[in-house]
C-alpha cells in the first residue's frame, strides 16, 4: 500500500523528481556569490533555513497543483464519508510538506557540514531553529493547497508561488507580521545566537495560520472532522493570534547576544578570534606575527594579545583584531587587514563613543599612516612620494622609529589627544 500522504503526489519517480526540484529551488539563496557562510556554522544553519525563501513558493505551487488535481478528481466527496475526513484532506499537503522539509533538511545538513569541513566551530544544539522554519514552510504549503482547492485551475499554481513569495517580502519588510521570514542574516552571528521567543512565536503563528488556511480550504470537511481534531486546530489558531501580535511588534528580533568564547593562536602577538568565526584565524595570526616584526624592531611594546572586537566593548589591555564582515568569514585575510589590526593596540572607549569630541580626527589619518608604515617595512607596499608626509616617508626607517614608538605608546594608552602626525 502506498503511503496515504503520497497518493496524490504521483509515482515514486515523480515524487523523487519533485523532491529534487524542491532541493534545487532552495539552492539560489544558499549559493550566494562568495559562500561566506562557510566561515560560520551558525550562519550556515541560518542560510540553510533561508532556502525556504525560494523553496517555499515552489512548494506552494506544487501543493496548489496537487489540490487542483484532488478537487477535480471527485474524491473529496468520498473524503466526506471517511472516518478521518480531515486527515484525508490534509494528507496530500502533508506529503508535499514532507518532501519540501526533506529538501530543507538536506540543504541545512549540506551547509552546516560544509561549514564544519571548512573549519567552523559547530553548534548542533542550535538545530532547534529548523523545526520552526519547517512550520513556516507548512504554512506556505497550506496557502498553495488552499488556492488550488478554491480556484481549481492549474494556472493558480504560479500565483500561489508568487503570493507566498510576496508574503515573504512583506514579512521581511515588516508590512505584515514576520511569520514568513526565515534566516537570511547579513551578519556572521559571532557572539550571537537565535532568539528563542520570537522564533517560537513564529512557529506557533505559522502552525496556526497553516491549520486555519487548511480548514478554510475545505470548510465542510473540517466541520465534520472529529472533535479532537477540531479542538487541536482551534487551540493552534487561538495560540497563533497573540504570536502574530508579538511578531508584529518591535520585539521580533530573531538574533540575540550569546556568551563569548575565543579561540587563540599563540605567538607574538597572540591572536584571538571569536569561536564562531575562526576560519581565517591561522592566516591572520601568521600575518600579524610576521608584520609585528617591524614594530618590534622599532622598539614598541606590543600588547600580548590581539582580540576580535565586539561592538560596544572596549579593552585597554588588548589590541583589536579589526575585520570587516567578509574578512571575518573568509578563509584568508590580506596583509592590510593584519596591519590594520596591529595598528590598534588598545580598544579605546573613544572608538565607540557617540561624541565626536572624544575622537580627534587625526586618529583616522594616523591609523592609515601606521598601517601603511607596517606594510612598507614588510615590503608589501611602497612609501608615498607625494603629499604632505612625503619627506617623512623618505627618511630612513631608524629615523621614523621615534614617531612610531611615540604614536604606538599613545594609542596603547588611549591618549588620543596626544597623537601627532609625523613632522
Amino acid at each position: 500500500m502506498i503511503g496515504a500522504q503520497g497518493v496524490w503526489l504521483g509515482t515514486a519517480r515523480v515524487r523523487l523528481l519533485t523532491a529534487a526540484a524542491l532541493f534545487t529551488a532552495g539552492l539560489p539563496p544558499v549559493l550566494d556569490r562568495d559562500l561566506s557562510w562557510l566561515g560560520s556554522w551558525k550562519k550556515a544553519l541560518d542560510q540553510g533555513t533561508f532556502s525556504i525563501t525560494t523553496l517555499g513558493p515552489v512548494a506552494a505551487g506544487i501543493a496548489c497543483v496537487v489540490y487542483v488535481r484532488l478537487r477535480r478528481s471527485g474524491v473529496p466527496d468520498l473524503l466526506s464519508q471517511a472516518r478521518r475526513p480531515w486527515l484525508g484532506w490534509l494528507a496530500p499537503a502533508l506529503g508535499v510538506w514532507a518532501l519540501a522539509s526533506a529538501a530543507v533538511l538536506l540543504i541545512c545538513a549540506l551547509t552546516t557540514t560544509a561549514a564544519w569541513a571548512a573549519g567552523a566551530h559547530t553548534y548542533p544544539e542550535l538545530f532547534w531553529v529548523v523545526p520552526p522554519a519547517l512550520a513556516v514552510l507548512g504554512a506556505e504549503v497550506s496557502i498553495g493547497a488552499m488556492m488550488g482547492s478554491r480556484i481549481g485551475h492549474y494556472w493558480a499554481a504560479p500565483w500561489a508561488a508568487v503570493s507566498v513569495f510576496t508574503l515573504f517580502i512583506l514579512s521581511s519588510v515588516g508590512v505584515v507580521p514576520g511569520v514568513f521570514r526565515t534566516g537570511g542574516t547579513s551578519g556572521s552571528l559571532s557572539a550571537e545566537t537565535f532568539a528563542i521567543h520570537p522564533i517560537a512565536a513564529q512557529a506557533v503563528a505559522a502552525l496556526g495560520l497553516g491549520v486555519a488556511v487548511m480548514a478554510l480550504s475545505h470548510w465542510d470537511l473540517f466541520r465534520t472532522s472529529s472533535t479532537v481534531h477540531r479542538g487541536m486546530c482551534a487551540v493552534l489558531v487561538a495560540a497563533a493570534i497573540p504570536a502574530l501580535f508579538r511578531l508584529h511588534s518591535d520585539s521580533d528580533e530573531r538574533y540575540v547576544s550569546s556568551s563569548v568564547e575565543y579561540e587563540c593562536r599563540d605567538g607574538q602577538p597572540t591572536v584571538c578570534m571569536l569561536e564562531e568565526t575562526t576560519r581565517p584565524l591561522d592566516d591572520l595570526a601568521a600575518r600579524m606575527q610576521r608584520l609585528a616584526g617591524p614594530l618590534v624592531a622599532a622598539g614598541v611594546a606590543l600588547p600580548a594579545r590581539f582580540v576580535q572586537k565586539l561592538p560596544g566593548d572596549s579593552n585597554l589591555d588588548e589590541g583589536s583584531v579589526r575585520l570587516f564582515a567578509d574578512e571575518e568569514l573568509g578563509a584568508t585575510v590580506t596583509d592590510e587587514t593584519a596591519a590594520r589590526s596591529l595598528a590598534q593596540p588598545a580598544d579605546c572607549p573613544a572608538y565607540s563613543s557617540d561624541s565626536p569630541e572624544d575622537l580627534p580626527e587625526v586618529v583616522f589619518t594616523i591609523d592609515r599612516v601606521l598601517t601603511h608604515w607596517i606594510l612598507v617595512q614588510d615590503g608589501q607596499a611602497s612609501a608615498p612620494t607625494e603629499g604632505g608626509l612625503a619627506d617623512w616617508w623618505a627618511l630612513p626607517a631608524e629615523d621614523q622609529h621615534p614617531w612610531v614608538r611615540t604614536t604606538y605608546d599613545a594609542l596603547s594608552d588611549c591618549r588620543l589627544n596626544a597623537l601627532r602626525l609625523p613632522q
Partner: protein
Amino acid sequence: MTVALSGVRCSYRLDRPVVTIDELELTAGPVGLVGVNGAGKTTLLRTLAGARTPQDGTVTVDGDDLYGPRRRRVVQTIGYMPQEIQFPGELTVTQVLGYLCWLRRVPSRTAKAQSAEAVEAVGLADRAHQQTRRLSGGMRRRLALAAALVNEPRVLLLDEPTTGLDPEQRAGVREIIANLDSRCLVLMSSHVMEDIASVTSSIVVLHEGVVRYHGATSSFVAAHGGPNRSAELAFLTTIADA
C-alpha cells in the same frame, strides 16, 4: 435499513432550492432515482452520502441523523459512487482500494480481504495490479463501484453507474447490483430507464427538485407506461404531468 428524509431543502443559491423534499422514506432493496438533467439527482445523492449538508431538514439512516453528532459513525454505513471520479492514474486498482480503506479506517487486517472481495464483485480481479490509467472507461466505472463497496455498506448510492458504458458493460453493472445483499439499500440514478426498470423494485421520480413519484417500479410502469408498459413513456408522462 431505512433512509428517511424530512423537510430537506438543498440549494446553491438561497433563492433557488435545487432539492425540496418534505417526506421520503427509502427501504432496503434496489431503488431507482430518475429525473432529467438538473432535476437534482446528484445533489440528492450527495446529500444522502453525507457529502453535502442540506440547508434545512434531516436525513436519518435507521433513525440516526446523518448530519448529527453520530455522523462519522452513520456515514460508515454508506457507500457512494459519484457520477465522475478520477483516481490517480498511477495507482493500481489495489492501491486505490487500499487508500479508500485507509480513509474509511478499515482495519488493515481486514482491508486486504475487503478490497479483494470488492474487486471480485465488480469483476476486476484480473486487473487488480493494473494502473487505473490503463483501465477502459467501463472498468473505471466498475472500480468506482468497487470503491463504494469496499467498506461493505448497507446503503449504496450510485450516481449514473451505467453512463458511458456499452450495452454489455451496462448489463454487467446491472448484474452486480442485482447480486448485492438484499438487505442493502441501493439507490441508483440513471438516464437509462431500461436499466432502472430491469434492476429496481421501487422508483423515485425527481423533477425540479421535487419528488413526483415514489413507489413500486412495476406499478409505475403499469400505471404510466401505456399499453406497451414502457418505462421511458412512464417517466416522460410523469414529468409532463408535473
